[in-house]
């Protein structure tokens, strides 16, 4: 298993896309922190990178990589190896290389300019989002045999999580404006890992505004240790469930 992970990582490094992604993140993060006169604006730009760019790169790169390594997978399957361990080591290799890329690219500038609670939350959620979207990409590739269809599905999934879902929530909110929506909103946010990560960062970033009545409801939930445990458990299940389901599919898949 370790050997396959090593192969995957060296292959990804040779591919150079991840290296370019790292360099891009590094350049973007350093420039947002050093160009703006106050670090709060830099934080906001970085927040957008984490919430939009990281999931996009993570899901698209993973999908394309999986489709391109179909032959490599076939070769591995012909060896006396368990399918489960092949799939999991592929996932481990991809997820770890994406997380390391994010940590080097965005984590190090954040640690230099923003070594506080906000910074740590940002790094942690960025890494978790990288892994989650790799997991979702695995689900997409195992479901679709056709490459174009698979990549299309990945893009649609990204669009759904980063844009459409929030639009739906906003729509629901306007429709049910007469009802107390604070608690259902917490439940809804668990259905989207990007939203959940955003709220976790928001609670650090806009703490003053979040102390208003409604914000206080969110703060009382997400700000407490039970809330934190809940959100990390939900984020974790966003990794575990797609990986588990795709592994099951891959076990019985006719290659």
């Amino acid at each position, binding site marked *: 298993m370790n050997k396959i992970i090593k192969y995957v990582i060296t292959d990804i490094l040779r591919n150079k896309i991840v290296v370019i992604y790292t360099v891009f993140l590094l350049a973007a993060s350093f420039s947002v922190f050093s160009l703006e006169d106050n670090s709060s604006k830099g934080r906001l730009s970085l927040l957008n990178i984490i919430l939009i760019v990281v999931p996009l790169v993570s899901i698209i790169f993973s999908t394309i990589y999986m489709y391109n390594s179909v032959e490599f997978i076939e070769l591995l399957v012909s060896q006396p190896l368990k399918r489960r361990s092949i799939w999991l080591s592929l996932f481990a290799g991809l997820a770890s290389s994406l997380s390391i890329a994010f940590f080097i690219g965005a984590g190090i500038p954040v640690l230099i300019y923003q070594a506080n609670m906000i910074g740590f939350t940002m790094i942690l959620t960025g890494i978790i989002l990288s892994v989650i979207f790799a997991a979702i990409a695995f689900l997409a590739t195992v479901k679709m045999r056709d490459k174009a269809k698979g990549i299309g599905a990945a893009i649609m999934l990204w669009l759904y999580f980063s844009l459409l879902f*929030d639009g739906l929530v906003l729509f629901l909110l306007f429709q049910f404006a007469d009802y107390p929506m604070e608690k259902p909103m917490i439940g809804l946010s668990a259905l989207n890992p990007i939203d959940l990560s*955003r709220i976790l960062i928001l609670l650090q970033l*806009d703490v*003053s505004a*979040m102390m208003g009545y409604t*914000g206080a409801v969110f703060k009382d939930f997400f700000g407490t240790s039970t809330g934190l445990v809940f959100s990390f458990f939900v984020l974790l299940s966003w990794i575990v469930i797609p990986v588990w389901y795709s592994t099951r599919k891959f076990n019985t898949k006719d290659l």
Partner: protein
Amino acid sequence: MRYFFFIFFCIFYTDASAENIYAGAKRIHKNIRSAIKAAANGDTVFVDAGFYKEKNLSVDKSIVLKGIGYPVLDGERRYEIISVKANDVVVDGFRLIHSGISSLEDLSGIKVYDSQNVVIRNNILEDTFFGIYIQNGLNCTIENNTLKAISIEEQQSGNGIHCWKGDSLRVIGNKISGHRDGIYFEFVKNSVIWRNISKNNLRYGLHFMFSNDDMYVNNVFRNNGSGVSVMYSNRIKMFSNYFEENWGDAAHGILLKEISDGYMEGNYFTKNTSAIYMEGANRIHMKRNVFENNGWALKIQASCMDVVLEYNNFIGNTFDVGTNGSLVLNRFTNNYWDKYEGYDLNKDKIGDIPYRPVSMYSMIVEKYPPAMILFRSFITTLLDKTEKILPSLTPENLKDSAPMMNKAF
């Protein structure tokens, strides 16, 4: 030489008329009550360090009551500790603990009844219902006192420094915490509040009602239940105060309700849910204030008129300005807004396109508070950008037509 004798005589004369009377365990007067009884107007009563249970101590002569080494006066949770009922009284250097609590009478640590020129200074008040209470005072000074209450419920606690009806009062350098309102002014004119620290009070750090021509300078109001509230008053001046960490839905750095002709300069608003909330405020001039890291820097209701904001710095606020209607009768000019994205082609340090401080999302959150959970998501950023180009929801006239490119000061 003649003059010298004259001066000497004067000093000698005054010294002879004002006697020093001592109270303490080892003195003739074992308690303060008998010392005050023996004193005449103009005398000084020195009280040795110790523990005194005087029940209600009434000071009805113009004397100086001075504690040496903070003698403790215990109200046994039943009595008002010191009642001042004469002019020119000085109460200095006592430690007052456990006043009574009553919902019928405003029992206090020190209460001044209808008197002039009273000075209350350097006292420590702990666990009192009301702290220092001036009822119809003229030209009184409350200076360097420390007031600390440990109350949990609003009903069971009184105000720290409570002034009801007065003129020319001075409240200087006091530290107040844990009371209902830190400082309370009602029907008080021509007074000054200077260098006080009012924090962790249950309701307001400072509460103003029907008090005209007052000024407060260099005070710190931190982490009070609902911040500071100034209501139904005219011609209030506020300089260099600090409003910090007043958190909660109904908490404001400062609430201005039905205020006219106010002037605010050099105040710092940091980390409040809403730094300023204005309702029915007229002719307020705000200049060179700093708004930093607040939820809302300014909530200005449509009922406000002729409010002028100039040369203020708005930095790192979640929302700069929130409002509830489209009518705008106020003027914003030459402020620095860190969210301003315009340009300055002629290099006069003033942005060439106006800045609209009301974002669309702040209007949405005003209407649908739970929408706050979607803040800073991709779709809300998109909505904000569209609104900037084609304003439809936000008031058209609420804008700073000459925003500064750099900090205003």
